[in-house]
C-alpha cells in the first residue's frame, strides 16, 4: 500500500519528533565516552599496560560512585602497538568514529606527540599520562594538550639530591637515545656542572642494547663515583647485572626511570640493593594529606587486578581523574561536553591527588609535579629524598659496590 502525498508529511513529522525526543533523552542518560590510547602490545607494553590499568580503575571508581551526574562513563581503549603511526590511526578512529569527548593515556613522547597534534586539530582535550619533552608544550601553543608529568619534576629533585645528599666530585651520565632521555641528560649535566660537579662521562646508547661492558670499563677508568643512568627498565636489568659482574667500584647508581618498580627488584634480586631510583608515587609514597586516598587506591587496586600498582599506574589514574573531574564540572554547570568547555575546566582544575596537587600552567604542564628519590633497601623501595618526604636514611656509598651480587 503506497502512502499518499498528504499522509507522508505527518509520518515524517512523527519520525522527526521521535528522533529529536530520543536524542534529547539520550544525551541525558547517555554514557560519557572517553578515548584512551596506550601501548598495550609491542616494546612499551609493560608500562602501557600499567597506565591502562590506572585509567580503567579511575573510570570504574567513577561509575561505582554513580558516574558523572548520573551518566555512566564509557572507556574506549585503543592499542597503539608502541608505534607512532598506529597511535595516529587509533586517535583518528577515536575522534572521527567513536566521537569521544576527550583523550587520555600515552606513554613516551614519540607516541604522545602525534596524538597531541590531532587533539588540537579536532579541538578535543587530551591529557597525557607520561610525557616529558619540553617541545610538546613549548614549541607551539596547544590549548587542548595537558599532561600530568614534566621534565622539571625529575631533573630538579635529582640534581638537588646528587649535589646536596651525595656531593660527589665526579659523575658519569649514560642515557638512552630517545628525545626525553637526551633532554633530561643534557639538563642534568648543565645543572650539576653549575654546582661544581665534574661530568667525566656523557654517553648515549640505543635502548635494548645487550652489552654495556665497554662503557663500564670506561666508567671504571674515569673514577666516577656516581652513575646517572637515563635508560629504561630493561636497560637497567642488563646494566646492573654487568656492573655487579665486573665489580665496578661505584658509590651510587641512579636510574630515574625503571628502578623504582617492584618488578625490577624481583628480577634483579640482591643486585638491586641500594640502587637509587625516582618515582612520583608508590605504595607508602604519596602526597601529604592523601594518606587515606592512597591506601584505599592500593587496597582496591590489588583486589581488582591482583597485583601492586606502580608509579606508572598512578600516572594513568591521575590523568584519567583530571578528565573525569573536568567533565563533571562541565556537566554540573549544565553545559554540553564540548571540547572548549572541557578544556576550560581542565585549565582551571586544582585537585589534590595521591601523586600530586594537580593544576596546569598556561601551557598544559603540571604546576606541582615533583618526583622523590627512592633507594632499594632490604628489597623494599624506600623514599629517601627530599627529607620532608623521606621514610628512610640514604645509604651512601652503596654497600657491595665492588662485591658479588
Amino acid at each position, binding site marked *: 500500500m503506497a502512502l499518499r502525498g498528504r499522509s507522508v508529511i505527518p509520518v515524517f513529522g512523527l519520525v522527526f519528533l521521535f528522533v529529536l525526543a530520543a536524542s534529547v533523552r539520550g544525551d541525558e542518560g547517555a554514557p560519557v565516552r572517553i578515548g584512551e590510547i596506550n601501548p598495550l*602490545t*609491542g*616494546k612499551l*607494553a*609493560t608500562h*602501557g*599496560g600499567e597506565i591502562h590499568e590506572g585509567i580503567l580503575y579511575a573510570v570504574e571508581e567513577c561509575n561505582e560512585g554513580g558516574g558523572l551526574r548520573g551518566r555512566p562513563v564509557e572507556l574506549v581503549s585503543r592499542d597503539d602497538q*608502541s608505534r607512532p603511526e598506529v597511535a595516529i590511526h587509533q586517535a583518528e578512529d577515536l575522534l572521527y568514529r567513536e566521537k569521544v569527548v576527550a583523550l587520555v593515556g600515552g606513554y613516551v613522547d614519540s607516541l604522545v606527540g602525534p596524538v597531541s597534534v590531532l587533539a588540537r586539530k579536532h579541538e578535543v582535550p587530551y591529557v597525557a599520562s607520561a610525557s616529558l619533552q619540553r617541545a610538546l608544550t613549548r614549541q607551539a601553543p596547544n590549548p587542548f594538550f595537558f599532561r600530568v608529568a614534566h621534565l622539571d619534576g625529575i631533573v630538579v629533585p635529582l640534581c638537588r639530591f646528587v649535589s646536596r645528599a651525595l656531593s660527589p666530585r665526579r659523575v658519569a651520565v*649514560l642515557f638512552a*637515545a630517545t628525545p626525553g632521555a637526551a633532554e633530561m641528560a643534557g639538563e642534568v649535566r648543565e645543572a650539576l656542572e653549575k654546582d661544581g660537579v665534574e661530568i667525566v662521562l656523557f*654517553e*648515549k*646508547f*640505543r635502548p*635494548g*642494547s*645487550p*652489552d*654495556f*661492558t*665497554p*662503557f663500564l*670499563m*670506561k666508567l*671504571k*677508568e674515569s673514577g666516577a663515583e656516581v652513575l646517572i643512568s637515563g635508560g629504561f*627498565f*630493561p636497560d637497567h*636489568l*642488563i646494566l646492573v*647485572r*654487568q656492573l*655487579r*659482574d*665486573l*665489580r665496578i667500584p661505584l658509590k651510587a647508581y641512579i636510574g630515574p626511570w625503571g628502578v623504582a618498580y617492584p*618488578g625490577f627488584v624481583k*628480577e*634483579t*634480586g640482591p643486585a638491586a640493593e641500594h640502587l637509587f631510583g625516582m618515582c612520583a608515587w608508590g605504595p607508602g609514597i604519596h602526597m601529604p594529606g592523601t594518606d587515606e586516598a592512597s591506601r584505599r587506591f592500593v587496597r582496591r587496586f590489588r583486589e581488582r587486578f591482583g597485583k601492586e600498582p606502580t608509579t606508572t599506574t598512578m600516572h594513568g589514574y591521575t590523568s584519567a581523574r583530571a578528565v573525569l573531574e573536568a567533565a563533571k564540572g562541565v556537566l554540573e554547570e549544565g553545559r554540553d561536553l564540548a571540547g572548549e568547555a572541557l578544556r576550560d575546566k581542565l585549565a582551571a582544575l586544582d585537585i589534590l591527588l595521591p601523586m600530586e596537587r594537580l593544576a596546569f600552567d598556561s601551557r598544559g604542564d603540571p604546576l606541582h609535579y615533583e618526583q622523590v628519590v627512592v633507594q632499594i633497601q632490604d628489597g623494599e623501595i624506600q623514599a629517601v629524598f627530599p627529607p620532608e618526604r623521606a621514610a628512610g636514611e640514604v645509604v651512601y656509598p652503596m654497600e657491595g659496590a665492588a662485591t*658479588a*651480587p
Partner: protein
Amino acid sequence: MWVQIFLNAFSLGSFYALVAMGFALIFGVTHAFNLAHGELVLLGGYLAYWLTRSFQVPFYWTLPFCMLALALGALLLHLLVRKVREPFELNSLVLTFGVALILQNGMLSLFSADYRLVPAAGGPVKLPGFAAYLSPAQAWLLALSLGATAALYLLLKRTFFGKALRATIQNREAAELAGVPIRRMRLAAFVIGGSLVGLAGPLFGQMAYLHPAGGMEATLVAIVVTIFAGIGQIRGILLGGWILGLAETLAVYWGGASWRELVSGVLLILFLLWRPEGVLAPKRRAVP
C-alpha cells in the same frame, strides 16, 4: 683492563654466534627465511625462566629441556613451511612472519608484558693473575658456542649424514640427483636448528632480557651473523660473531655507545662487498 675488554668482546661474539647458529643451519639447508627465529629464541628463554623460577631447576638442566622443546617446536614449524609453494623464499618469509606474530601474542598472554631475566647461576670468578672477572653467563656462552660449533662441524665434516646435509646446502638439485633425500635433510635441519635455538634461548634470557616483543632483535643478529659467515659455513658463524662482538666492543670503548650500530653497519657493508660468500668461504674464481 685489556684482558677484561677482550673477554667481554668474545663473550658478546659467542652470544651472537649462538643466537645465529640455528637460523644459519635452517636457512642453509631449506632456504626458509625464518622471521620467527627470534621468537623461538625467546620461547626457549621463557621456558628456562619458568623452570628456574617455578621449580628451582638449576640453570644447566634447563638447557637440555629447552633443546628438546624447541626441536619439537621447529618440527611443527617445518610441517607448516613444507606446505609453502613457490616462490618459496618469499612465501616462507610471509608465513614465518605470521608465526612470529602468533608467538608474540601467545607469549604476551602466557608471560605478560613484564620484563624477565633468567637468574644468574652463581657469582663472577676472578681470573688468576689478571684484574678481570668471568661471569657465569660469559663462561656458558664461551663454552657452549665453542662446543656447539665443534659438534656441528664434526657432524657436517665427518659423518655421511653431514656430507648429505652439506651437499643439500651447496646444490639441492645435484644432491637430489645423487640420491640425497632432500625432504629428510630439511626435516633434520629444522630439528637440529631448533635444538640450537633451544640452547641459545636460556642464555639469551640471562645475557639480555625477555620480553614478548624482543624477538626481532635476535632475528636481526642471526641474519647479520649469517651474512658474515656465509651460507653453510659453521666455523664462520663463530668467527663472524667474534668479529662483530670485537668491533662493537672496541667501537664503544674508543668512540662511545652511539658508535655500536654504525660500526656494525659499516662492517656488514664491507663484508658484503669484499667477501659476499662469507668470512671463511673460499673465493670463487672468475670463469675465463
